[in-house]
Every structure is written in structure tokens, then in C-alpha cells.
């Protein structure tokens, strides 16, 4: 069979709802595309651990201290699962980690921003996890089978995180004026990054990942679902959302934002790894990676055989 024949067969398989396993034949473009996509997802989980872990030392109760630690632990666990899936497509975890810390590969925009206080733990845990869950749930239908298998577990844990984040949020929302002010401050800073989170409008004709059902829904579709689900929940707690200010579209009766109100400049900078916290956070990971070379060597050492 020629490469073209195999390609045609592969597309027919995908169009017929078929799934792809790691050992199956796949076009190089599919392999590279899936690898890059899952690698970025994994990178985002491990980088997403940083802003949240910044709030662990100051968690305000014993219960919160344990549950936020557990939540960040889950995110690292997700990275572990995802890197394993990506690794089986032909790039070692070490290579992916090095590409991440040296700034060669990318991670999600929201994890390039700083945190200042417990209000950030609330908004990250509720709205950013809410946004991530909308995206990840859509990927459960992806054509790459090993990805869908780990996503099943990831989505189940994200459901729990959503509750956890909402619980923190509601405690602040029903608390003192200072507690409410912390939440409002965090909302003001995170709203635009959350809108960016879904990415600019998809180019349906050119996006191979959409064509091959690695991704199943467009960026704008996912953003619309998020807005309609979460805007009313924020507003009913009597908080304000900054530009792009959402409103209820009269025709569709759905919560939306005006596309022209979205300032994309911050996202463009982040795409070049020039976000407010990008260099500092990557630098922390890079230094830790270099300082702990000896640990990797200790783990590599075959002369040591633990019982």
C-alpha cells in the first residue's frame, strides 16, 4: 500500500467514527499534531500547578491546606498521565520537560499570570477549572483513544475540583466585605485571560486536528458554552465582570461577549512566551531541573536495586 492509500484509508476510518491506538498506522501529520496537542495539555497541567501551589502556604484553614495541596497533587497527576500518553507517540518525557523549561514549547495562557491572595485560589479553582472542564469534556470524544482513556479520569477529578473551587468562592462571596473584595479583585484580573483561554476563532478549513476529530469543537463554540454556563453564576453572587462585559443576547437568550471588546494583545505576547510570569516560573523550573540532575541520575542507576 502506498502512503496515499494508507492516508485515504485512515481518513475513512476517522470519518466512520474510528479510534486510533498508539501502535496503529497514522499519518505523520496526525502523530505530530496529536503529540503537540497532548504535550501542550500536559505542559499546562504541570505549569498550572504553580499558580495554585503559590497559595498553599497561606491556605486559611487546616481543611483548605490539605484540600488545596490535594488539588495541586491531582494536577501533577494529570500531567503524569498525559506525559505518559504523549511519550508513547515518540517523544520522551525528559525531552518534553526540557522543551518546556527552556521555553521551546508552550502552555496555556492562564498559567502565565501572577497570584496575589486567596481570592486567586477561588477564581482559579472555580472559573479556570470550569473553563478547562468545558474544553476537556469535549475532548472525551477525541479520535485518539489513549487520550480519551486518561481524559475520563481527568474529567472526573476536574468535576471534584470545580466543586472545591466553587466551595472556596461561595465562602468568600458570603463572607465579610474584605473577603468579597478579594474575590472581586481576582475576577477583575482573571476575566480577560479566561476569555483568551479558549483561543481565537478556529479556522475550520485549515485545522487538521478538527478534521481528524482530535479536537471535536471550535474555540468559539467552547467559549460560548462557558459564558452561558458561568456568567449567570457569577452575576447572581452580585459580582461585576470587567471588559469584555458579558450581556444576554436578546435573540439567542444566551450570555455572550462582543468579539470586538476582546483585546487579544496580551494573548499574542503569551504565545511568544512573554507573559507577566512566564520567565520567572520557567526559570524556577529550569533551575530546579538543573539542580536535581543528580536525582535523575540516582533514579537511573541500575546498580541500585531497591527491594
Amino acid at each position: 500500500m502506498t502512503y496515499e492509500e494508507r492516508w485515504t484509508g485512515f481518513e475513512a476510518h476517522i470519518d466512520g467514527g474510528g479510534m486510533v491506538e498508539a501502535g496503529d498506522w497514522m499519518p505523520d501529520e496526525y502523530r505530530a499534531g496529536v503529540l503537540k496537542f497532548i504535550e501542550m495539555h500536559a505542559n499546562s497541567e504541570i505549569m498550572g500547578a504553580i499558580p495554585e501551589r503559590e497559595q498553599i502556604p497561606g491556605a486559611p484553614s487546616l481543611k483548605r491546606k490539605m484540600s488545596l495541596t490535594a488539588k495541586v497533587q491531582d494536577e501533577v497527576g494529570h500531567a503524569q498521565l498525559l506525559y505518559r500518553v504523549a511519550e508513547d507517540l515518540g517523544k520522551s518525557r525528559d525531552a518534553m520537560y526540557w522543551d518546556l523549561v527552556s521555553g521551546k514549547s508552550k502552555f496555556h495562557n492562564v498559567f502565565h499570570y501572577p497570584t496575589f491572595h486567596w481570592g486567586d485560589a477561588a477564581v482559579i479553582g472555580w472559573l479556570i477549572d470550569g473553563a478547562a472542564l468545558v474544553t476537556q469534556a469535549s475532548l472525551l470524544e477525541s479520535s485518539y483513544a489513549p487520550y480519551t482513556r486518561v481524559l475520563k479520569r481527568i474529567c472526573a477529578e476536574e468535576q471534584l475540583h470545580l466543586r472545591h473551587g466553587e466551595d472556596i468562592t461561595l465562602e468568600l462571596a458570603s463572607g465579610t466585605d474584605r473577603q468579597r473584595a478579594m474575590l472581586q479583585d481576582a475576577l477583575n484580573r482573571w476575566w480577560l485571560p479566561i476569555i483568551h483561554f479558549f483561543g481565537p476563532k478556529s479556522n475550520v478549513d485549515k485545522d487538521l486536528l478538527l478534521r481528524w476529530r482530535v479536537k471535536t469543537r471550535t474555540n468559539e463554540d467552547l467559549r460560548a458554552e462557558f459564558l452561558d454556563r458561568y456568567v449567570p453564576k457569577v452575576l447572581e453572587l452580585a459580582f461585576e465582570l470587567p471588559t469584555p462585559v458579558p450581556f444576554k443576547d436578546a435573540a439567542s437568550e444566551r450570555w455572550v461577549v462582543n468579539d470586538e471588546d476582546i483585546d487579544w494583545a496580551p494573548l499574542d505576547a503569551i504565545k511568544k512566551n512573554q507573559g507577566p510570569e512566564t520567565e520567572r516560573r520557567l526559570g524556577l523550573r529550569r533551575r530546579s531541573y538543573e539542580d536535581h540532575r543528580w536525582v535523575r541520575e540516582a533514579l537511573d542507576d541500575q546498580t541500585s536495586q531497591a527491594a
Partner: protein
Amino acid sequence: MRRSTIRPRRRPESLVEIYEVFRRSGHKQPFEHCGSVTAPDVGMATVMAKECFTRRGEGRHLWVIRRADIHTWSDDSLPDPAADKSYRFAHAYRDVVKKRALARSRAQADAR
């Protein structure tokens, strides 16, 4: 005072390996694959797998196996046997009910 000398060690090739992890949620369930870990040896792989895959009490029994030691087989093509193999399935015996009735009426006829 106790002292011993540092023994120099040979530096081998990287041997961090992938271990596949199977989990059983209870004694009535079978072991099922739940993921994999990267670890230097089976002892550490087990310790790590315990936290990666059972920290919410999803199971208390694990099998941890070097991926290299697992043999796989798969065939996604539709089964197209050369002969009828329906005898392997319960649906091939659906007319047992009818036959039971027939046999019963025959037995009753004999008894008369």
C-alpha cells in the same frame, strides 16, 4: 564513631523504565489496567503507583509489571470465520424453549 568508605559506582545507561499498573477495586473484581508510571525499579514503581492510582481508595490491590514483559495481541478486523461458529454463543440455542415443550409433550404421550 562509625565510618565507611564511599564506593565508586559505574554509570550505566538510563534504565528508568515504564511500568504498567493494574488495579483491583475489591476481591470480586478482576484486575484492570489503570495507567503506567516511570520508575527506576519495581519497588519504587509500586510505591509511586500506590499514590498515583489508589489515593482515593479506588483499589487496595495492584499489579505492577514492566511494560517490556507484557506481550500484546490485537486484531480490530471484523471476525469472518471460514465456518459457522455460532455454537460458541448462547443465541445459537434460543430454540431450546421450543424443544423443551416438544420433549415434554412427547413424554406425556408416552406416559399415556
